[in-house]
């Protein structure tokens, strides 16, 4: 029980006007508990990085934030997750709409096997966000522009998205997420399948997107967390060990485990 009280002590979850919050979040895969009493605030229009060794529950936590865990059998969740102060696990919340408000980018680029245009246009189409072809064109162009992809693909919007390179595909996935005007974008190790150049581009993009969106990113690379995030949360064995300003976490961690992880002694 020492660990629990310690995490309660070192985790300083509260930020002013959090976009999203998690309170006392427990998650079970059937009988295995994967998250223990996680308390975390996500600050608005900032990048929050979730770091920690493999299997520590950071991706699981990320998927709790847009209820992607609902699609997995045998998952039970206790505790609260809120978006703008409203519980997202409330029965009255429409999960489809929720996922439109909280976009997600996955580890492996997963464009639909359609054209580049259709990939980006899919979200606005199914949510009925546009009234005319021109509006849709505009959304697609803006989204591609925001994802820093427009220049590379504007001459081949009607060619298949699967023909793009891995880095381009991942930026396309970001454009696709941006196209439904989400408030929060969750990124699950978005660069783990990319080469260093593509990674640099995506990181740059994340930094730019920060001005418009609240971003939560799971990463295995501590350098990446240090580069792109303003706040960092360190998970270990399903518990949130420490959270704080990224500078503070990396230069002056309060918890021994955090120190051990970021200096490379375990993990």
């Amino acid at each position, binding site marked *: 029980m020492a660990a629990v009280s310690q995490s309660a002590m070192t985790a300083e979850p509260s930020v002013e006007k959090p976009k999203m919050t998690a309170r006392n979040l427990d998650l079970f895969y059937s009988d295995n508990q994967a998250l223990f009493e996680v308390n975390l605030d996500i600050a608005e229009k900032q990048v929050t990085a979730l770091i920690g060794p493999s299997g520590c529950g950071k991706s699981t936590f990320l998927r709790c934030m847009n209820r992607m865990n609902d*699609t997995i*059998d045998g998952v039970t969740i206790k505790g609260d997750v809120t978006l703008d102060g409203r519980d997202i696990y409330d029965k009255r919340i429409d999960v489809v709409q929720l996922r439109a408000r909280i*976009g997600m980018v*996955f580890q492996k680029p997963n464009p639909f096997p359609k054209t580049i245009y259709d990939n980006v246009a899919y979200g606005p189409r*199914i949510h009925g966000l546009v009234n005319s072809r021109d509006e849709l064109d505009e959304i697609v162009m803006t989204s591609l522009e925001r994802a820093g992809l427009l220049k590379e693909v504007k001459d081949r919007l009607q060619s298949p998205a*699967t023909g793009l390179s891995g880095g381009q595909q991942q930026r396309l996935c970001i454009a696709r*997420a941006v196209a439904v005007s989400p408030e929060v974008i969750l990124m699950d190790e978005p660069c783990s399948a990319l080469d260093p150049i593509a990674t640099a581009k995506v990181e740059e993009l994340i930094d730019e997107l920060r001005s418009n969106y609240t971003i939560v990113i799971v990463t295995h690379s501590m350098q990446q967390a240090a580069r792109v995030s303003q706040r960092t949360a360190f998970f270990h064995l399903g518990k949130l060990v420490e959270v704080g300003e990224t500078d503070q976490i990396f230069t002056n961690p309060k918890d021994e485990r955090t120190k051990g992880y970021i200096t490379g002694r375990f993990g």
Partner: protein
Amino acid sequence: MTDMASLMEDRAAAKVISDNLRKPVDWDSPKIARNIKKRYAAERRFKIYGLAAIFLALTALFVLAGSIGSKGYSAFYQTYVQLEVTFDKSVIDPDGTGDPEVIGRANYDGLIKSALRERFPDVTARRDKRNLYGIVSGGASYDLRERVLENPSLIGQTRSVWLISGDDFDMLNKGYIDPAVPEGDRRLNDQEVGWYNELVADGAVDKQFHARFFTNGDSREPELAGIWGAAVGSFYTLIVTLALSFPIGVLAAIYLEEFAPKNRFTQIVEVNINNLAAVPSIVFGLLGLEVYLNVMHLPRSAPVVGGLTLALMTLPTIIIASRAAIKAVPPSIRQAALGLGASPVQTVTHHVLPLAMPGILTGTIIGMAQALGETAPLLMIGMVAFIVDVPGSALDPATVLPVQIYLWADSPERAFVEKTSAAIMVLLAFLVLMNGLAVYLRKKFERKW
């Protein structure tokens, strides 16, 4: 403490292994060389086995196709006999009315018989005459009637006309009856063979393309029997089967794969579907007999009942193939759609189903091909009946291609042997066509991701 002890044991074991690892390997030693030789021999053997298997399969295929083809190709030709037919006005239209109804009712059979009597005037005995009339098929009178109805000016004239020959005569002409065999052991006696030789000498016997085989329904007379009735019956049956089993099968597969909770009940359903796929088809026939005919009183021998029965049989195949195809769609596509806020149904209809479609269609067509070749369940529901008319709808009595093959194979007349093989060829052609369609559809819908 036991933990500690086991740990020590592990350490000790690890030490032995690492000692072995430290020993350098002599890659040039005879032992290693022997090992390599053995490996190469094994790979060569394996290759030979594979080639032998393919060779055997191909040989079997060629033997099958060859035997069917060599027996069946002659069914596409039919012997015709040329006779001088007098279109006697007193027989066809005695009152000179020109009324098609009167002309249609006339005794054309009599005209043919008198033509035959004129051709062979020395035949007088009653039995011999009956044999003589066997030269020309009973169906020839219909041809004659058509001819006169089309061209009434023929009435009163004498024309030389090619008439379709009877089946025994046809067999003789095609070489299936050997005149060298003692008279008592063959279908045609010496006198009949003599007539044949005489006609051949006159150039009055000819083989022509047998279009009737493709346009007629079944008949007791082999030379008049055709495959079209069975083909149409098969068509209606398959339409009913497809219309039922495709939507039901695909929906069941989608539900089981994408929406159903994974619990005991769905497990039982799954096991049962897999078992159903292995149930002998005759059992489905009995089920169809009881449910569709005895309880629901649907028309006997009708393609609609055949289709319903075959749909039961095809469903498991389609469900299993569709589930496999749906399962093969990468989960990342579903996540991408769900992550964008697509509802589960949108995810399935917009992404999963289009990507699974090639596999689903392949499975469906394999199931349909299976249904096309199915005989046993249809015997149970009366589609084995002798039906002459080409069915006009799925409610008319009909038979199907494989049952037609079964019926012909069972018929005593020698001429049905070639019909059987020809029907098999037609059935195989349909199967090849359907499989070709499967390949085409798979290629067409295939998308890379």
